[in-house]
């Protein structure tokens, strides 16, 4: 027996292996060992050329006797094994699960750190290799660090591929190195785990298609598209928009193109077309746009104490439309109420309505905004709606004249203003004389009409009147002017 080597996976037991020089056939082998020179030796027989014995505190003596088939001793050798000569190699890690998320081209890897075998607090280093293509080319090798806790902990790690997982099979393997500081022996990386695979569509006999399918990316992104074709087909060319691109072969049935720094797409998206033989065609659509800007100048007012209307500056258009458009929601912190806004992506003056809540005067708004590329929100806006009244245009302005120098005006305002006083302004114009403004204030009413008396008019004179109103106490904005009404004094 020669070349005795001992390896431990758990710092307690070690597996010793040896070689046997002669070519004659052997029978059983006799093993005797003593640990740290403490008699008596432990002896037993084995047919293998390996034995598992305790890791010594300092050293162990191992005596190996090889015998012939009939049991007569061939050769005996005594080995002195010092702890410093023992090699520590962690147990080969095993991947517990490898889960693909095709929507985000992300792979989630879970494995156990086998920490229960080791003392608390040891540093563990993991190397994870991702391989691709039928040729299992290494795509990346990543280091991951963790601390052992004397328990078996399931570790989890995510990796996002630069191409859709459907394009070709992705393989993963992992190994580890544990920095056992108190172990004086040699230390090395574990073996690589068995490879786990996320099969691509090109591994599926009936798999085909262009990927990613109908996805959305930010302007400036680099995107890899692939075309997986059926067995009896082949790809003649692939184009992005109207431009053909050089193809990269991923496997027998999968070809890719790489688009760099993608620019904003048209409203219907940019087509990625894979032309196959016999004029067949497959494709996908890419939408390239912008994440939403932070909404600016959020402003809210009430026209009628029934709803609150908020407006804002949306910022740069996202370039995304339809179901991928930028969506807004108005969140009110005090009530916790959330309203989604109907905003048409073409309209650059968006408006959102929020119901006036019973017994609530002040509102703390935040405008949330999101689209498939990103999300953000406005700064919050605290408003007291009694100080943000912007009435609707007065209607049904009617004039009745009871004598030659005074008239009676009445008008209607749609809304419920019982909580405030209204200030209304009547504009009086006639022929060539200068326009006059007459202010009148009155208690607000609920969907009611309002009236005013004008005196000191000139007889036999044709006048034009119109009216607008606002909140009397906390002026915010005038309503629009009502329609003009004419009246001639008698």
């Amino acid at each position, binding site marked *: 027996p020669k070349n005795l080597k001992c390896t431990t996976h758990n710092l307690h037991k070690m597996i010793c292996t040896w070689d046997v020089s002669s070519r004659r056939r052997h029978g059983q082998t006799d093993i005797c060992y003593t640990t740290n020179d403490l008699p008596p030796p432990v002896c037993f027989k084995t047919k293998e050329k390996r034995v598992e014995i305790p890791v010594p505190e300092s050293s162990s003596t191992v005596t190996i006797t090889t015998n012939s088939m009939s049991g007569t001793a061939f050769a005996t050798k005594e080995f002195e094994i010092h702890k410093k000569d023992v090699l520590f190699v962690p147990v080969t890690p095993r991947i517990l699960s490898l889960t693909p998320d095709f929507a985000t081209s992300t792979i989630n890897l879970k494995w156990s750190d086998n920490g229960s075998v080791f003392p608390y607090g040891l540093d563990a280093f993991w190397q994870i290799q991702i391989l691709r293509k039928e040729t299992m080319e290494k795509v990346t090798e990543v280091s991951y660090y963790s601390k052992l806790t004397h328990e078996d902990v399931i570790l989890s790690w995510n990796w996002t591929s630069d191409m859709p997982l459907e394009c070709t099979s992705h393989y993963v393997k992992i190994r580890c190195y544990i920095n056992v500081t108190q172990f004086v022996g040699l230390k090395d990386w574990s073996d690589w785990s068995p490879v786990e695979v996320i099969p691509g569509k090109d591994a599926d006999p009936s798999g085909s*298609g*262009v990927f990613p*399918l*109908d996805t959305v990316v930010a302007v400036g992104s680099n995107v890899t598209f692939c075309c997986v074709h059926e067995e009896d087909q082949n790809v003649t060319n692939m184009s992005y*928009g*109207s431009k053909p691109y050089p193809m990269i072969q991923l496997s027998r049935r999968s070809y890719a193109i790489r688009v760099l720094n993608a620019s904003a797409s*048209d*409203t*219907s*998206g*940019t*087509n*990625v*077309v894979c032309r196959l033989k016999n*004029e067949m*065609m*497959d*494709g*996908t*659509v890419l939408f390239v746009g912008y994440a939403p800007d932070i909404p600016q100048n959020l402003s809210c007012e009430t026209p009628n104490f029934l709803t609150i209307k908020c407006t804002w500056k949306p910022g740069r258009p996202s370039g995304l*439309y*339809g*179901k991928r*458009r930028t969506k807004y929601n108005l969140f009110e912190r005090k009530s916790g109420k959330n309203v989604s806004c109907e905003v*048409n*992506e*073409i*309209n650059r003056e968006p408006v959102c309505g929020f119901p006036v809540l019973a017994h609530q005067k002040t509102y703390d708004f935040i405008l949330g905004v999101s689209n498939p590329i990103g999300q953000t929100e406005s700064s919050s806006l605290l408003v007291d709606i009694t100080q943000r009244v912007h009435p609707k245009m007065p209607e049904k302005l009617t004039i009745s004249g009871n004598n030659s120098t005074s008239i009676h005006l009445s008008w209607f305002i749609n809304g419920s203003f019982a909580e405030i006083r209204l200030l209304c302004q009547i504009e009086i114009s006639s022929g060539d004389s200068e326009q006059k403004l007459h202010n009148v204030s009155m208690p607000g009413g609920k969907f009611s009409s309002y009236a005013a008396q004008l005196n000191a008019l000139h007889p036999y004179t044709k006048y034009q009147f119109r009216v607008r109103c606002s909140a009397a106490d906390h002026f915010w904005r005038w309503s629009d002017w009502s329609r003009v009404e004419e009246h001639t004094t008698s």
Partner: protein
Amino acid sequence: MAGADSPSAALRRRDLCTRGIRLVGKMRSDVIDLLDTYVERQGLDASASVAAVEGVPPAAVERWDEQTGTQRLLENLAAYRAFRVLLAQMLEEQREQLGEADAALGRALASVLLQVSAFAYHLEELLQLESRSPPSEEGDGPPPQPHLSLFEQKLRGLGVLRELAQWAVRSARDLRQLAKPSPGTGSAPGLAESP
């Protein structure tokens, strides 16, 4: 075999056929314009070859000459009912995908859909002229579409519009055939007879 028409029925049919020919002629020019807009807005290649659209009888027909008037009308009606379903679906997809972004394309699609519906109604009138009630619509028309990717939707839309343009040509020929007076009698034959 149905005998020849009464003069008033023949006159009525010729009037319907003439108006039908005008309607389908207008429809065809609108479809051609729409096709150009569609190809451009959807970023498609005008020469792209597209598979036949499932659920629409092909416009090309063998032994066109031998078809009876009723067969012509029934085939036309089946086709335009199918186009009505497909165009409505295209309009829905267009709204879902583009929202307000391409209102012009949406309006053009809606306009053609309206004309297709009108022409289908026109064909029903022609059939009723022969006291022949139009077939019920249940179970007719294109099968429910499997979920299509956006690119497949774009290609199918192209296929629908191309086929509709072909059908418009055929319908005009069919209606001209129906409007022809039968030789000698000076009056248009009953639909069952007219080749």
